[in-house]
Every structure is written in C-alpha cells, then in structure tokens.
C-alpha cells in the first residue's frame, strides 16, 4: 500500500470523523490548522467527540488513547510535505478550500493524493486550483447516528483512474465501507437525505403531527436510527440550512429549497442541541 502518512488540512467538525477513521485504522495523522489558537480548540473538540463515542459504545477508552497518540497537531503547513495523501477538511467555504488546495499542491510531492471532504461544493471546482488535478478527488466522510462510518469517493472530471483505485484500496485498508460516486451536487447520501429532511420539516410546519409523534413514527415505523427532528437538532439547523441552500443553488430543484421553518428557527438562534434548543428543547 502506497499510503503511509496521512495529513488532514483544516479542522472543522467533520475532520474529527476523518481522524477517528484514519488514526483508528492504524495510520499516523498530521492535523494541520492555520492558526495556533484553533489547535487547542480542535484538540478539545476531538477529545470530546471521542468521549461521546466511548459513551455510545462505539470505541473503548484504550482506542481513544490510541487514536489521540497517532495524531500530531500543527499550525505549520510544511509539516504536511511528506504526506502520501492530504485530506482537506476546512470550513465549508469554497474559496478557503481552493486556497488550501493551491497552497498544498505546491508543497506536497508530485505523486501525493489531494482530497477534499466538501459536502456541498463541486470537488472538480476545488481540484481545479491544484497544479495537477489528476491526483485530486473528493473523500466525503459520513457518520451515521449508529456510529457507522462511510466514505463517498468522489471522482472529479479530472481524477486519474490510479487516484480513484488508490482511494478504494485505502478505504479497504481502513476497513470502512465506501462507494465511488459522480461529482454531482450532494453526491449520493446528501442528494437523497436532504429532500427527505426538508419534507419532514415542511410536514411538521404544516401540522402533520406533533414533534414527539413525528420522531416516534419514523423511528418505530421505518426503523431509522433517529426521527427527523431529533436528528436535525443533532446535526445543527444552521448546518443543514447551509447545505440545502448550497445544493439548491447548484441543482435548482425545489426539493432542496430551504423550508421556511428552518430559516425561522435559525434566525431565532435555535440551532439545535448546541444552543439548547432546536425543534426539541435541551435546557
């Protein structure tokens, strides 16, 4: 296997899932972030996320320690220069992502793979700012409420076959389920999930059922791990609003247009569990 050293560039929340999967799979990870001050915050958030994973029974205490020991946090980008693959997972802002891609492509080896973890932008567009886009692709990491991890390997217009098969091999090495998908808006999972969630929010707004009954029906009747309202509270209403808004802009399909109740809640500061209230209250 050609991949030994993995870099993660930028450390948004989703990056926590990436390092869990990769360090958990036995690979050392160098986690780079632009500013020194953000490093402490990231470390803390990651440690918390791993703590939650222990509480949910997804990992053991020892595994948490193992994972943390495999990660080197740094604010010096040149630490990434020997990485075999770098996964960009900065905030969901296309200009920032492009900037990181262009800087990294001048820094890392010619044959190193450059991936973006974007969920709502075009991986092809982001790859366009790298010197040689053939070695670029999307690696979209997802975690379900059940704790299962999953990767969408996004084939951009310019990804080489070698880059894609290396990613597939890497996922099997990590023992994580993956599919190779087209670089179309929302890829596969969000393309199917976002309209479902929007439909649920709209139906709730129209009084189909009260919030407990709606969640209970979906959980018990369809067997989904969480009902839609408790799930969006966990995801963050602002995060869903951003995702659906960006996808709508690209697809222009009304199923992706943000339901008005979502805008109202976000405008009212009700972002979900993290603010103590979304659809349900956590105070």
């Amino acid at each position: 296997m050609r991949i030994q050293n993995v870099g993660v560039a930028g450390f948004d929340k989703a990056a926590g899932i990436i390092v869990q999967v990769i360090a958990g799979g036995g690979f050392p990870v160098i986690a780079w972030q632009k500013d020194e001050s953000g490093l402490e915050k990231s470390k803390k958030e990651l440690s918390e996320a791993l703590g939650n994973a222990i509480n949910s029974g997804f990992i053991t205490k020892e595994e948490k320690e193992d994972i943390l020991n495999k990660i080197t946090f740094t604010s010096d980008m040149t630490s990434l220069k020997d990485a075999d693959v770098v996964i960009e997972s900065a905030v969901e802002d296309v200009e920032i992502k492009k900037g990181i891609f262009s800087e990294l492509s001048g820094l890392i080896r010619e044959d190193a793979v450059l991936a973006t973890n974007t969920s709502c932008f075009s991986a092809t567009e982001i790859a366009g700012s790298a010197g040689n886009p053939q070695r670029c692709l999307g690696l979209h990491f997802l975690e379900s409420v059940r704790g299962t991890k999953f990767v969408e390997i996004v084939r951009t217009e310019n990804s080489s076959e070698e880059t894609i098969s290396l990613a597939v091999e890497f996922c099997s090495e990590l023992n994580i389920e993956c599919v190779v998908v087209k670089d179309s808006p929302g890829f596969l999972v969000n393309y199917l999930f976002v309209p479902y969630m929007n439909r649920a929010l709209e139906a709730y707004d129209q009084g189909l059922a009260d919030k407990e009954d709606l969640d209970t029906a979906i959980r018990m009747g369809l067997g989904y791990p969480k009902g839609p309202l408790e799930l969006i509270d966990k995801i963050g209403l602002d995060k869903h609003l951003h995702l659906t808004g960006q996808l709508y802009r690209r697809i222009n399909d009304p199923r992706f247009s943000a339901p008005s109740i979502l805008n109202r809640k976000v405008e009212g500061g009700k972002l979900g569990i993290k603010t103590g209230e979304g659809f349900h209250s956590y105070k």
Partner: protein
Amino acid sequence: MSEKSKYVGVLGCGTMGVGIAIVSARAGFNTIVIDTQQSALDQAAAFADKFFAKSVKKGKMSAQQKDEIMGEKLTWSMNYDALDKCSFVIEAVFEDLEVKQKVFSQANESCPKETIFATNTSTLSITSIAAGSGRPEQVIGMHFCLPAQVMKLVEVTRGLQTSDDTFNRTVEFGETLGQVLVNTKERPGFILNHFIVAFNNDCIRAYENGLASVEDIDKAVKHGLGYPMGPFELLDYIGMDTQLRVSLALFNQIHDHSFYPPPLVKRMVDAGFLGRKTGRGFYKYGESGMFGT
C-alpha cells in the same frame, strides 16, 4: 371493562387483517374475524396457529395460553351478525373506497350503536370512508404497520367528523392492545407512507437517471444514514405493483411530483419484476430466496 368491550371485530383477513387479529387476541380480546372468502379465513387461521406455536417455542406464552387463544379467543366467520357484541371493529379489506364503505355500512347493521369503526387504510381519506358508514362520528383511522403482529406502531387519524369521544376511546383501546400510538393529521399517506413513498421514488429516480447503481445506493443509505435496509432491498419486499399503486394513490390526491412513480416502476411491473414474490425485482432471487443467485 364491560363484557361488551371485550369483543373486537376484524374485517378482512389478508396480510394485515390476520396480523391485527393476532394482536387483538393476544391482548385478551375475543376476536371475530370476518372475510368473504372461506379460503382466506382458513389460511389466516393456519397462519395464526403457526405464529402462536412459535411464540410458545420462544417461551413468550404457554401452550395452554395458545390453545385458549386459538380455541376460544379467535372466531372465524363469513357472517357479519357475529359482530353483534363488538365495541371495536377494525377493517383491513381491499384498499378500495367502495369496498371499505360497504363493509362499514354492513357492520353498521350488525354492531351496537356505540361501536367504533377503525380503518386500516394506507392512502384513502378517513372522512370519505366514514361518509358511507352510517356513523361518521365513530369512524377513525388506525394504520398498523406490516407485519402488524410484530410492529408496535399505529398511526391514529381523525376524519373531519370523528368525535373526541371516539378519539379518546381509540387511544385507550390502542394502549390495551399494547401498541404505540401516534396521532396524525388526515393527509394522504399520514406520516409513514408520506415519507417512505417519496424517499423510495427519489432513490428509484436517482438510479434511473444514472447517478449510481442499485447496490451502491443501498450501501450508501445503509452505511451513510444507518437505515435498516437499503431502498431497493425494501422495495423488493414491498413489491413494485404496490409501489406503483400507492404512489399513484398519493400523487392523485396531492399532485406533488415527489410522489409520482418514476417510469421505471411501471416498466418493472409490466416485465413482472415485482420483487421477491416473483423472484426478481431490483435484485434477482434464486430458489433459496438469496439475491444475486
């Protein structure tokens, strides 16, 4: 509870009716099961017997309890007069407005005047069914999930004329049955079919449009979202004929494109690719029932 309230009628004993009858008898109600076909009654009785035999084997009930249920609690009949002591009647006949109106108006002749009529309809309007019943204030929706003898959830839906008393008594009855009730507005598909029909059609459309393969979409939904089954695995259980019928029933009432069956659904029905029951749907099933063989 009065002697009367211990009797429950189940109209139609196909897939759903037999499950509902099992739930009712298991909860201790004298359950009168009515069907127009003797063969349907015989099949249902055999199915119930097998189900309770399994419950005994699993240690969920004693052999004596099973005998009591099969011998005393469950009555199989083709005659509506047998409903004369029922406080609740649940219909699970064909999904057809006229048939449902007819069975309720027949039951209306045989049942005491306070009897509540619950319909297990998936896509029809409670209010429309009630309109032919002769007692619209006492008609309510009780939508069980398949298989009813296993799934606890029931969607309870009031029609325009359903009285508060009917609603309250239904909630109490549902709890006695040991089911979990959720209350929904009267709207085509209630909660479950509203979401699952649209989601499945979205997935079929994504496949039809070449976004990804059947296997990849199933994998993404199971692992990425943690759902118990991929949409195509589920559709092969549901049957493409049912998907087509339910989609059209919802679309014709709501006119929302999300419910419109993608053209592939009709083509699969025409080709006989209905799912597991014909050995081929989105997957192929061999004689062993395993896909891919």
